[in-house]
Structures are given as structure tokens and as C-alpha cells.
């Protein structure tokens, strides 16, 4: 019997998800034994035209990482959707936009201006900014069109499952792959469409071993400016921690190490917007009833948009800067 085909793709992402897949150690041998690798640009030389030539639904499983921010990202997402039986949004970029999604705080023009003209390390005396089409002596050449708005994979194509995380933790990836092999080998039923794999549906606080005793605070501090107590909730020590607004499944690694949760596992299903949930959580921890003092305390939170929406801006209720 022919082996089931596996595809792994990166759109707007950093490559960390691909590394996380390699990080599953000897399980990667199971993957190589069980699957026939149909497409994985990060690891081997495949061409888009090879994928386009495959019959529809001939790839059993596609793990798609990366957000959608260019015409190329969308084109390949649609191509892989047509060729795959199961399409999985893999990692935070694909499922909720992640760091590339912070581009939604500004505009494409500002990003291009900064990157190609204004940044201190740029030397560009001819003020060249890449254009989708350029004329050269040999004719016209083109590059993919960059968009003003970064989108998530489920916003542009039909997605079957989501594996959250930036990147998904290797033990979780290994468990998912084991389950997939089990399903394919033993004819087990697939989980219902839309299931979030490799995570739980509680908040990060649920896995966090730190103690909470409803202590309130008068100001917020940056993590480097104090030595946090190892046993007490970071929020109660004045460190902004996104645990209350974040799905668990990572094993609360960061908070155990004394670093606040940044929210990379995204929203559990009972929360609709990470920033809104963080506002609620922070509202409960501030020790003041005086509007002016409250303003002063809130002003000690550096970059609320970038902190609360670091991973989920394109997937948030308002999605982008509207101005």
C-alpha cells in the first residue's frame, strides 16, 4: 500500500514551527517511516508546480504554519487546501496571526517606508522600494503582492484542525503525530472538525503552580526590574502576565521559570478576545478606587497593544488598526 502523503508549508512565519517539528527527536523517524513527504520547502527542494500537478485530495495531512500576508501565501494555502484531505493550522501564525500579525497595528506604507527608507541601518540612496512588477531589459518580472492586512489561515480557507503555540511544544506535536498515525493505521474516527489539538481548553493559570492570594498592586513592573518570588502569582507581583487569557497545553514553562506568559497558545474557547480578557484580569488586580490613580497605574504598563495582542491581533474582535 502506498504511504499516506504529508505536506508541511510555511507562509508568513519565522521557521520556528518547522524547527519544532524536527525537535520531536526520534519520533521524526516514525514520521519518515509512516508518511511519504509530499512537500516541505523548509527541509527539501520541492516546487510549487509539483504540488499543482498532484490530484486533488491526494495529500493526507497538511501542517500549514505561517500567517497570510501576501498573494503567494493565499495562493499556496488554496492550492494545499485543494490537494489535502486534512488541513491543519499549525502554530500561532497560521491560527491567529502571531508576531507577523502585529503589522495590523500600522499600514503597509509605513512598514515599507521604515524598512526601505527610514531604518538606521538602511542605505538606499535611490529610494528603491520593491514593486510587484518591474521592467528589466529581458521583459517584465514580478514578485508576490504584499498586503496591508495580515490574516489568519482560517480567515482565508477552510481549516480542519488547529494546533496552537509559538511554536507548538514538541511533546504536544509528538502526541498529535502519534494520534494521527494511530487513526490512519487502525481506522479510528477523526476528531470533530475544528478541534484544537495538542492543547487543553483551560487557561495557562490552570497549569501554573504559583500561589494566588488576591493581592492587589499599586504599580506594574518590567520583569527585569525585580527578582520575582518563585512561589507567588506574577501578576500579584506587578508583572503583566497573559496567563489568564491564554490556553494551556504548554506546561506553563515560562511562568515556572519566572517569565510571564506572553499568550502564545492563544485563546481558550470561553474567551473571545485576549486583550479584552487581559483588561478584565488587570482591572481586578489594581489596588485603587480613584480614577486619577488608576490612570497612573495603567500608564505603568508598557505597550498594552503589543503585550495583550502579541499573538492574536488578526484574530481579535477588531482585527486591525481601523484608522
Amino acid at each position, binding site marked *: 500500500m502506498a504511504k499516506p502523503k504529508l505536506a508541511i508549508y510555511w507562509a508568513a512565519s519565522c521557521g520556528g514551527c518547522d524547527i519544532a517539528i524536527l525537535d520531536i527527536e526520534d519520533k521524526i523517524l516514525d514520521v519518515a517511516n509512516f508518511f511519504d513527504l509530499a512537500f516541505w520547502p523548509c527541509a527539501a527542494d520541492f516546487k510549487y508546480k509539483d504540488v499543482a500537478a498532484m490530484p486533488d485530495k491526494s495529500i493526507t495531512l497538511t501542517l500549514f504554519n505561517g500567517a497570510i500576508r*501576501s498573494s503567494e501565501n*493565499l495562493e499556496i494555502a488554496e492550492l494545499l487546501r485543494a490537494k489535502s484531505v486534512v488541513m491543519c493550522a499549525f502554530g500561532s501564525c497560521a491560527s491567529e496571526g502571531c508576531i507577523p500579525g502585529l503589522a495590523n497595528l500600522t499600514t503597509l506604507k509605513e512598514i515599507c517606508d521604515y524598512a526601505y527608507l527610514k531604518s538606521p541601518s538602511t542605505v538606499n540612496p535611490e529610494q528603491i522600494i520593491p514593486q510587484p512588477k518591474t521592467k528589466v531589459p529581458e521583459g517584465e518580472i514580478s514578485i508576490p503582492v504584499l498586503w496591508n492586512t495580515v490574516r489568519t489561515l482560517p480567515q482565508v*480557507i477552510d481549516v480542519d484542525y488547529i494546533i496552537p503555540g509559538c511554536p507548538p511544544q514538541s511533546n504536544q506535536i509528538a502526541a498529535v503525530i502519534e494520534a494521527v498515525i494511530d487513526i490512519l493505521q487502525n481506522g479510528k474516527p477523526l476528531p470533530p472538525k475544528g478541534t484544537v489539538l495538542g492543547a487543553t481548553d483551560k487557561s495557562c493559570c490552570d497549569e501554573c503552580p504559583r500561589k494566588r492570594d488576591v493581592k492587589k498592586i499599586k504599580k506594574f513592573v518590567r520583569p527585569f526590574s525585580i527578582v520575582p518570588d518563585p512561589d507567588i502569582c506574577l501578576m500579584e507581583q506587578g508583572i503583566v502576565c497573559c496567563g489568564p487569557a491564554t490556553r494551556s497545553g504548554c506546561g506553563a514553562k515560562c511562568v515556572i521559570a519566572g517569565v510571564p506568559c506572553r499568550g502564545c497558545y492563544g485563546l481558550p474557547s470561553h474567551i*473571545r478576545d485576549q486583550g479584552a480578557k487581559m483588561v*478584565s484580569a488587570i482591572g*481586578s488586580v489594581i489596588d485603587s478606587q480613584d480614577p486619577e490613580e*488608576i490612570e497612573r497605574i495603567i500608564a505603568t504598563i508598557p505597550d498594552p497593544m503589543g503585550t495583550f495582542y502579541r499573538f492574536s491581533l488578526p484574530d481579535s*474582535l477588531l*482585527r486591525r488598526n481601523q484608522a
Partner: protein
Amino acid sequence: MSFEPKILGILCNWCSYTGADLAGTARLKYPANLMSVRVMCSGRVDPGFIFDAFKAGADGVLICGCHPGDCHYVEGNYKCLRRIPMTKTLLQGFGIDPNRLRLEWVSASEGLRFQQVVTEFTEQIRSLGPLQLKEWGYTPHQSEAGHPEPQPALNQ
């Protein structure tokens, strides 16, 4: 035709909703732009409700609760008091004028005050104009149908 703003009012059950009721029984007229939702306490107002309201087409959101010290649940309105300024910070981050959101204290006996607050807020939102959210009607390939996005890299 002049712009008629859509305003969502979220009123706490014990003071402000009763205050709104009083405005009604006293036949005090206030603009019909306000659509009110009753919650048990202003402390129940999750900032997500506010974002959701804007997403669903509201041009302004008015939250009314008991005066400080009068909350039926003792602390609820203080929670709300601490959430609203930060919600405004986030609205600003989303490029939405924070004046589209307002928190007011209205007691059960302040029907007249309720009328004034709603009238004044409606005028304020009218002057801010309609809120048109980008991104929410998006479908892939819209650009081909003349949608402004995706845009080519700029600075031709």
C-alpha cells in the same frame, strides 16, 4: 439625510436600568438611538462586550452603573472603573476614537440625569460620525472585485 448613530447602552440592573425606567415613566424624552441591554452589575461588563458591540455595528457604547459606593455587589462598579480607561487605551490602539466609549454613574432616582447623559452622548457620537470597521466583510479575492486590498507595495 442626517446620520443617526447606533448606540449600545449597557445598564446595571439595580441603579441605572431603574433610572432609565424612571426617565420613561416620567415621560422624559431622550434620543431613540440608544439600545439598552440590562446586566446585573457594571462589573459584569467584559471589555469584550464593548469590542463586540463595535464589531456588530455600534457607533458608540455607553455603560451606566451605580454611583461609587452604591454598587449592589459592593465592588462591581470599581472593577468597571478600572477596566474602562484601559479599554479606551486599546480602542486607541485599534485606531478607534476612545470618546466613542463612555462610563457614567446613574442612580435609580436620576431619570433626568439619564436623559441628559443619553442626549449629550448621542450628540457627541453624531459629531464623530459613523464607525466603519475595515476587515469585517473581507472574503478572499475581494481585491479582484475592486477592494482596496491587497495593495501593491507603495511609493511608485
